[in-house]
């Protein structure tokens, strides 16, 4: 029924022109169809319907607790568009990726020193690769493997700096917030005192009259 209604709305100008021609009147510009004629299948392309549990929220504005609570956050692993994702975002260690770890495994690793020494190693290995390519070109594979493991170590070190950066950002944001709150307290105190002073002056003026 709705389809017929929509079609009749769009086809009305065409029908008017046909009728006016039948009456031997010249069709005016108002009789030209304003839209291109819709094909039948376009009228059925509507938006998908809302999920069916919208009916549970019928009385939400009067009684917010009559409707179900939102679902709790997902924990563990979940599937999204066919892919498996995990809620635990942890950086996999190098051994799990099968890459030899070139910097000493310590709980407090000195990032700057290790990054600099890895950079040195990288330059040496690149030079070695150039030598090998000139002298013994068939033995490039091992050198390339060494260079790629150095790169993987570098990136792993940089990635393990990210939690530190996150905590430092958090500390910075909290300090900023404390400063802003202190400023707001000062402002409110100042304004209150000013308002009281104005009122007192007004009283004095009124009493003086």
């Amino acid at each position: 029924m709705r389809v017929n209604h929509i079609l009749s709305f769009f086809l009305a100008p065409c029908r008017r022109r046909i009728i006016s021609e039948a009456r031997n009147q010249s069709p005016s510009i108002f009789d030209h169809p304003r839209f291109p004629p819709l094909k039948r299948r376009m009228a059925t392309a509507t938006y998908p319907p809302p999920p069916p549990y919208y009916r549970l929220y019928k009385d939400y504005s009067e009684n917010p607790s009559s409707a179900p609570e939102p679902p709790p956050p997902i924990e563990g692993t979940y599937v999204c568009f066919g892919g498996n994702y995990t809620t635990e975002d942890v950086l996999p260690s190098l051994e799990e990726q099968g890459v030899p770890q070139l910097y000493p495994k310590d709980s407090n690793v000195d990032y700057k020193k290790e990054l600099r020494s890895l950079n040195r190693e990288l330059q040496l290995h690149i030079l070695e690769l150039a030598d090998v390519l000139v002298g013994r070109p068939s033995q490039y594979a091992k050198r390339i493997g060494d260079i790629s493991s150095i790169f993987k170590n570098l990136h792993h070190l940089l990635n393990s700096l990210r939690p530190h950066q996150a905590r430092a950002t958090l500390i910075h944001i909290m300090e900023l917030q404390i400063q802003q709150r202190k400023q707001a307290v000062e402002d409110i105190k100042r304004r209150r005192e000013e308002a009281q002073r104005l009122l007192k002056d007004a009283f004095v003026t009124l009493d003086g009259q």
Partner: protein
Amino acid sequence: MDIISQLQEQVNSIAAITFNAFGTLQRDAPPVQLSPNYPEPPPAAAAAAAAAAAAAAAAAADDPTTTAFPEQPKQLSADLVKAAKQFDALVAALPLSEGGEEAQLKRIAELQVENDLIGQELQKQLEAAEKELKQVQELFGQAADNCLNMKKPE
């Protein structure tokens, strides 16, 4: 961009310079004589090669972007060393506060306590200010009503 992302970009650019350097050198290298037994290239080819080399030199003199082959390794290695130095400079600029994870967590806990305290104080001040505001508004309303209903002075 934050410094860790800059460091990561620098590492990637070192890798890019490296493989571009080796690729260009391998592509543009002139042929090398493998053994002294192989004959020199025939003179006709040598003359053609000399003419081509002269044309290439003229083209290189006109076009500043193309460089003669011996210059390329120097330039590429200079780029590589420059990139490595920049990486070192970025590493030196890392604002790594010593103390590790526990010190940071302790600091975060301290800041949370301080934040809560000052939040409560802010709340108190806000409530007092709103109360006073309401009082003043009430008084102002009364004063305005009195003004409106004031009898004409005799």
